[in-house]
């Protein structure tokens, strides 16, 4: 196991039951290592298992078989303090997150994981800047610091004067950039992006990916799924999935 990896999965398999007897393999024996600062593109046609893999890596779902190891030494400092209750766990370097319960997985996502969705999923009743800040509302961080971080991110993704706009007043590209800010404000270790350019035109899509490239340079690993292989120039690695298996 590479000590440099932040997340590593071994023989991850996900089986869905259809009816009483039929089993469908959404993922089969997936081995994958994710290192800080790299962009991994998971490509494949619809139904190949891309979304299932993201769900499992991000702690939203559990695999039927296999293990996913999270590198505690590279975890968020706050997670080390608050997310890991037991001393023996804190002393481990890699820990299998498939053994964690819902509460621990929530802590894992709270401090270490950022999400970017295809449909952006901004909260319509919150302004753009409030959508971004809402990631940190439950954490004990002063509101001044939260606001400062949010404004800095808005400048970074070139969303000038859009802080007080509501989502429905923003274009698709602008909404996706707000979603990126929301994912990044808590300084996650891994960002999962599901078809982040799926609802955008090609030019805006490329802008978004360039911004993701910038994110990865700051140390966060980015795992994004897409069915558009033309975008591979932005990735450090491309993993092709077909029928739940890696084909490379």
């Amino acid at each position, binding site marked *: 196991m590479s000590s440099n990896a932040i997340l590593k999965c071994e023989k991850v398999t996900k089986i869905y039951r259809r009816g009483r007897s039929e089993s469908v393999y959404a993922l089969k024996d997936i081995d994958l290592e994710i290192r800080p600062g790299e962009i991994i593109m998971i490509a494949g046609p619809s139904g190949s298992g891309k*979304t299932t893999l*993201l*769900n499992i890596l*991000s702690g*939203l*779902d559990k695999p039927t078989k296999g293990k996913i190891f999270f590198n505690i030494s590279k975890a968020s400092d706050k997670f080390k303090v608050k997310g890991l209750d037991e001393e023996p766990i804190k002393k481990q370097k890699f820990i299998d997150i498939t053994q964690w319960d819902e*509460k621990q997985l*929530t*802590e*894992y*996502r*709270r*401090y270490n*994981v950022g*999400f970017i*969705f*295809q*449909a952006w*999923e901004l*909260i*319509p*009743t*919150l302004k753009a800047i*409030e959508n971004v800040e*809402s*990631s940190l*509302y*439950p*954490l*004990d961080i*002063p*509101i001044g610091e939260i606001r400062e971080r949010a404004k800095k991110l808005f400048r970074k993704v070139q969303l000038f004067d859009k802080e007080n706009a*509501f989502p429905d007043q923003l274009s698709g590209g602008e909404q996706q950039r707000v979603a990126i800010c*929301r994912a990044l404000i808590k300084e996650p270790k891994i960002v999962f992006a*599901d078809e982040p350019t*799926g609802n955008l035109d090609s030019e805006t899509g490329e802008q978004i990916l360039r911004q993701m490239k910038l994110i990865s340079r700051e140390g966060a690993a980015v795992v994004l799924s897409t069915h558009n292989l033309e975008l591979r120039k932005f990735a450090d690695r491309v993993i092709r999935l077909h029928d739940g298996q890696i084909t490379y």
Partner: protein
Amino acid sequence: MAIWRLVKNSIRFAFRAKKRWITFVIIFALLSAFVTLFVSTFNGYSTEKLMAQKGFYIKAAGTSENAGTVTEQQGNNFYEEIIALSQVEKVTLFRYFDLGDSVRIFSVEPDSRWMLLEAKPSKIVDGKYITKDNEALVSLDASITADIGNISASLSATLHKGEVLSFKKDNNELDITIVGEIEDTINAPGKFKLFVSDTTFDQIQEFYSDNSPVFCYSIAILVKGDLFKPFNHDIKNNIETLSPQSSIIWINPDDPSETSEYGVWAEPIVPDARASEKQRLTDFLYFFVGILGGMILVLLYNALIVWFRKREIAVLRAMGYKKREIRINLLGESLTISLLGFIIGLSAMLIYFWTQGLTFTNQVITPLTLLISFGIVVGLSIPGLLISSVSFTRVNPILLFKAR
């Protein structure tokens, strides 16, 4: 600090809502109004009906030209005996005297304005009820036409709201402002009626002490007991105990043995105890219907809020919000909407009844009634949302990975 931010966020959720949230505010406003009605805050126990619920009213006999068979002294004797009874909360004695052939002056109490049925606030056609000394109500369109010696109307023969009536004797002068005009239902044809406070009544009477005997017009008795207590029979028992139909001699005005002391009293207006009990049972049923309906609506709303906010809940869960934090978010929104609805509904009802000229005593809007209404509309949101929590724990953030 973090919790306050979540609460603030939930209020944003509520106030920046789309049409459906405004719809819910309206629904909660209507619910508040109906629940309040169901607990009979306004319609069942308005001050107009208070006498029918808690008291009765005894009139002196002969209120026409041969009026005044009960003297002030006899009335006071009656008053003293009744007020001493343990079942009695309040007794009010209404007096009158005739000034010449055309003017009759009544004493009323501003603090017990609803106790004299012929001069209760709902009888006011124009203006307001008297609130202090040197104010008066007059019978509508009644004119001072007779020779009334040293009384003079300031502007016209017919007195109206806003005009001043001056009483003069020797070097003394008493000015009384007419504050309202009242529908005349007192059987004393051709007489101009003036209703003033007890103190002013005594002052006017003092001017004419030599030739103006005072009589008792009526007596109103209010019994002890809380209004809204479905299983409390205090009021009913007290009314029955005090009822002139009973054998208690001192309030049986028709008993010949008492006439020398109390004078002759007309048949009293007695509340029907059985009807009163039936009304209370009906109100109690309404109360349950109100509670049940309110509970169902509040629980339904809290289930719906989880349904409507499904994607937002999924986003928050994906971001790592704990269930408790999501619950605060939803509860804040739910409470904001229901509280807003409660305030709007209650205010609208108060304004409506105010425009209708209905008046209330402190006994009508009791803290208990408000608490019940608030509890149903707003308070139930808390258990309602806790029950609905089961639904949102089933919301899986995975749904966010699926296109809308």
